């Protein structure tokens, strides 16, 4: 059997490893758009900052592909999928397959700001090439602007501050981390940023990017001109759906898959940042994060080999650190009942409850035990009896245990 995987990220690699562990004989071909072996994109900001070395980004040994008998083709940007002929086209080269896995991930969203695209000194922080571009630009930059205060944006801010740049953060909405936090929690984060010398401008929509012979030289936002020599655009990521045209694969915001990671076209599966789960509890969400990429890649691989396995549901949880302050968030940010805990030293934990079930949580400063709360939400456990204790950092797994009193061990 010939299995073709589009992508070379965590979903693709976890799928390839699972396939090889299950089936020693099948032919596995990976098509990578980039020209470097598998690396982790999550510590890219730390790489720019200088706290993580380049070698550390590569999570597998140099001979990994040979060891597992994986054929990897670098620099192959897939342009078309011909599902009728079971072929994938990258430029004028065709690759045939018996089973196809789409694990090519997401791409940075570039807002339609005049002068943004293609200007020298403007970067996203999505790939290793982006990070290296930023590192090369830093020596000739004194001031930087980061557009977007999602977690990539905040990580980029920290990396640039670490290099001694004057950083301005632009956020179009009225507070930072709009998809993770509510106003009160975001204010704590904003204070943390300001304390570390970041100029935070919320309600500032970037209108125009200015450039001269040396590349970018400023941004116009909210009517004022902010000079800068380096610009990072971190306005979010979108599932990359560009290669689906004419393939007949159904998509909405991401490629629609069932709990076995199968698309509507027989023999074609999808995993990672690119998928959307219409059946999941968090309906129609695209959740681009590392745990989802790894677990969906694994489930897709097993099902491709005919081993039925269902995915329990995506992890709708994320965490970011802002100058040492940990921030975790899951589920929704608004609800009728909000339980709150704080320790008076900057740590605030909020658990959002609706109809006696947890529907979300936001934790700043103290994130221990977030997993326990998230699990209660995923299982739909009635939390009425726990009350305020839910928000306390000591709220642990013991609360979800029913003591076994039937057996006398003692």
């Amino acid at each position, binding site marked *: 059997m010939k299995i073709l995987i589009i992508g070379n990220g965590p979903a693709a690699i976890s799928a390839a490893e699972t396939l090889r562990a299950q089936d020693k004989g099948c032919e596995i071909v990976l098509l990578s758009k980039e020209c470097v072996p598998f690396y982790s994109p*999550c*510590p890219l900001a730390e790489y720019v900052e200088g706290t993580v070395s380049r070698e550390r980004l590569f999570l597998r040994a140099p001979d990994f592909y040979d060891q597992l008998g994986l054929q990897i083709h670098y620099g192959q940007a897939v342009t078309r999928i011909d599902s009728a002929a079971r072929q994938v086209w990258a430029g004028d080269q065709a690759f045939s397959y018996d089973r196809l896995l789409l694990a090519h991930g997401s791409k940075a969203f570039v807002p339609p700001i005049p002068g943004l695209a293609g200007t020298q000194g403007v970067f996203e922080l999505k790939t290793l090439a982006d990070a290296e571009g930023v590192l090369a630009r830093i020596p000739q930059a004194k001031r930087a602007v980061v557009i977007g205060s999602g977690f990539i944006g905040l990580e980029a801010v920290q990396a640039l501050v670490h290099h001694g740049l004057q950083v301005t953060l632009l956020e179009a909405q009225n507070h930072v981390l709009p998809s993770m936090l509510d106003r009160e929690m975001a204010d704590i984060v904003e204070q943390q940023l300001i304390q570390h010398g970041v100029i935070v401008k919320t309600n500032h929509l970037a209108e125009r990017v200015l450039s001269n012979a040396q590349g970018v030289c400023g941004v116009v936002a909210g009517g004022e001109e902010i000079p800068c020599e380096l610009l990072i655009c971190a306005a979010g990521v979108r599932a990359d759906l560009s290669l689906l045209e004419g393939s007949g694969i159904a998509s909405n915001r991401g490629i629609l898959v069932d709990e076995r990671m199968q698309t509507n076209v027989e023999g074609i599966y999808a995993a990672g940042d690119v998928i959307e789960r219409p059946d999941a509890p968090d309906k129609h969400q695209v959740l681009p994060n590392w*745990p989802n990429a790894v677990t969906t890649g694994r489930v897709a691989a097993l099902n491709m080999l005919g081993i039925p396995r269902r995915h329990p549901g995506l992890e709708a949880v994320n*965490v970011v650190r802002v100058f040492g302050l940990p921030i975790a968030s899951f589920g929704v940010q608004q609800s009728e009942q909000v339980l709150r805990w704080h320790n008076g030293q900057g740590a605030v934990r909020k658990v959002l409850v609706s109809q006696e079930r947890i529907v979300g949580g936001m934790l700043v400063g103290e994130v221990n035990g977030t*997993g326990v709360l998230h699990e209660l939400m995923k299982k739909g456990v009635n939390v009425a009896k726990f009350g305020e204790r839910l928000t306390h950092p000591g709220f*642990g797994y013991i609360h979800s245990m029913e003591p076994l009193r039937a*057996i006398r061990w003692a």
Partner: protein
Amino acid sequence: MSKTIFTIPERCVACKSCELACAVEHSCSKTLVGAMMENPPPQRRINIESVGAFTYPSRCQHCSEASCVSACPTGAMQRDAHDAVFSDSDKCIGCWMCVIVCPFGGVTADQSSKKALKCDRCPDRVAKGEAPACVSACPTQTLLYVTPEEFATERRKATAKAAFANSEPTAQPNGMDILRSLKRAN
């Protein structure tokens, strides 16, 4: 099957011997006095949680499909030769992804070292043929280091005994028994 740590929550009296032994084992000196003098102080990876009088030593369960291993974007969280999940602190960047996906609260975010802390099932002790520190230190046999088969046998015996005897143990009640009866009453 190889040995692993089992917990019988009904036996726990929250003496916290496991917490202390764990911190000592994960200190530089590996002695109690030495551990007390260390700066930063060594951290435990087992945590006594309580609800009323019911207590339970919470720690990593070394899941077979561990969410923390799947979630780790730097390859720090991994499995050793004895199937124990451990975190390589050199590779850990303190992103806390493992902390927020663990349904057991088995991984702790250590704010001072910026590293994820979790039970590693004491590889040094296990290599010497000893039980992990928390198990050795537990005076009530709440924590057991046995194979799943041995644990199942123990459990069957206890169930059979309870079914036949259907009574309290006859020995004089001591402090432990009083604590246990309190737990049952709760």
